[in-house]
């Protein structure tokens, strides 16, 4: 479980996050949603220490991450897997080396054991046999799956996914969502997904946090987000004409 307490973050005069407090539950896919520029990614980056918070705390299983020094944070970070928006695979390394990178850095496994683990992770994301490809030879969807394989290679306790579906076709996006959900259950991880994709919310949103104007505006699950009367959320969820029609149908059915 990850808790954030009263997080504030500014860049110069611009305050991006205002007093955000929430809990990300273990064994669940926790979604941070909101429009672009509302502070979702900044919140996630504050949680993993890529941005320093101005005030507030991030607590990993009772351990205050914000109060830790670089070495202590490094210990926590070895339990974090992160899938970046652009996958952030290392260009100069092939798929096998990318997935095995955290293991070669932090474990005492032999190269044979690392190879076995890499093969297992690649099989888990349906990329068996792609070990020798370079990232530049892989499609966007493949790169995302390699990113997931790398993120889970160390058996992390926490998985962060920054817009895992951006730039993917709907079918591949659903595949990635399913993969994230399955892995979360399988390893009993605390998963945090940053997205503005409503399909992902409907597919995997067990605990959804809506960020608006740098504040936590709403929290609930995928069912309650459809029925909430909160105007900001409704504007976000029912942004398209098609979704507005669906809302109208829901309201007609209710009445």
């Amino acid at each position, binding site marked *: 479980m990850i808790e954030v307490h009263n997080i504030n973050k500014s860049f110069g005069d611009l305050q991006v996050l205002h007093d955000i407090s929430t809990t990300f539950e273990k064994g669940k896919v926790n979604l941070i949603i909101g429009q672009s520029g509302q502070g979702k990614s900044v919140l996630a980056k504050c949680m*993993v*220490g*890529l941005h320093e918070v101005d005030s507030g705390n991030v607590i990993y299983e009772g351990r205050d991450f914000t109060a830790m020094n*670089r070495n202590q*944070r*490094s*210990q*926590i*970070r*070895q339990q*974090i897997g*992160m899938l*970046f*928006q*652009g996958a*952030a*695979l*290392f*260009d100069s390394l092939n798929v096998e080396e990318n997935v095995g*990178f*955290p293991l*070669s*850095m*932090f474990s005492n496994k032999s190269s044979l054991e690392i190879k076995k683990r890499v093969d297992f992770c690649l099989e888990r994301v349906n990329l068996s046999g792609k070990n020798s490809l370079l990232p530049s030879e892989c499609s966007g969807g493949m790169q995302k799956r390699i990113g997931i394989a790398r993120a889970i290679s*160390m058996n992390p306790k926490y998985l*962060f996914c920054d817009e895992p579906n951006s730039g993917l076709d709907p079918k591949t996006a659903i595949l990635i969502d399913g993969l994230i959900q399955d892995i979360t259950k399988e390893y009993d991880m605390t998963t945090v997904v940053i997205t503005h994709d409503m399909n992902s919310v409907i597919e995997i949103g067990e605990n959804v946090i809506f960020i608006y104007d740098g504040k936590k505006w709403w929290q609930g699950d995928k069912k309650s987000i459809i029925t909430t009367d909160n105007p900001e959320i409704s504007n976000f969820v029912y942004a398209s004409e098609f979704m507005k029609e669906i809302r109208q149908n829901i309201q007609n059915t209710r009445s």
Partner: protein
Amino acid sequence: MLKILFAIPAKWRILWRRIVSELEIIGISSLFIVGLMSLFMGGVIALNTAYQLTTPLLPDYTVGYITQQSTFLEFSPTVMSLILAGKVGSNIASEIGTMRVTEQIDALEIMGVNSLNYLVLPKIIAAMLFFPILIICSMVLSLIGGWLALQVSGLINTEVYVLGIRSFFDPFHIAYALIKSVCFAFLIVSVSSYYGYYVRGGSLDVGKASTQAIVTSSVVILMANFILTKLLLF
């Protein structure tokens, strides 16, 4: 920043592997350009010196002596470092800068890797190890270039040229050149890495950072050259 950069690496084996890889990228891949430049520059130094020395009061071997002095004291350590600042510096700044804007450095940090230590330290060590080798190659090839130019022009024969090179030879000049090359290696890699590591934005900014890295490295090399010359020779 320096404390983080020079921290004890997570695994010595990985540091060693990275150093070997950087030796190839920074050092071995620079051999051709250094060799080519040195041959031609040595030839030009020798020809220019021969052209200037028309007085019968100076012996012919002065051409060899001046070629040797110019090569050892300034051309090989300083001019070659300026050329390497362009080649190696832009390569480092763009490599690290691209890693920054594509979040690869963030990925390293999230994994708990000390990204500065992992990315920059092997480059610094590799450059400081290989630059002196490049400079020695440059010295030898520059003198050969001078000899070739004089032979082709038929200005001075080999015996006189070699006599000039050996005249008043001071081994400290070799040490002086190597000390300078090690210092310049550190400056080129650290300045270029700095610009790459702290780049913000996109590919356009990586290009700007790369240019800035070359300009700053060159200026810093010239300033350091003045200070080192003053400290080591006077």
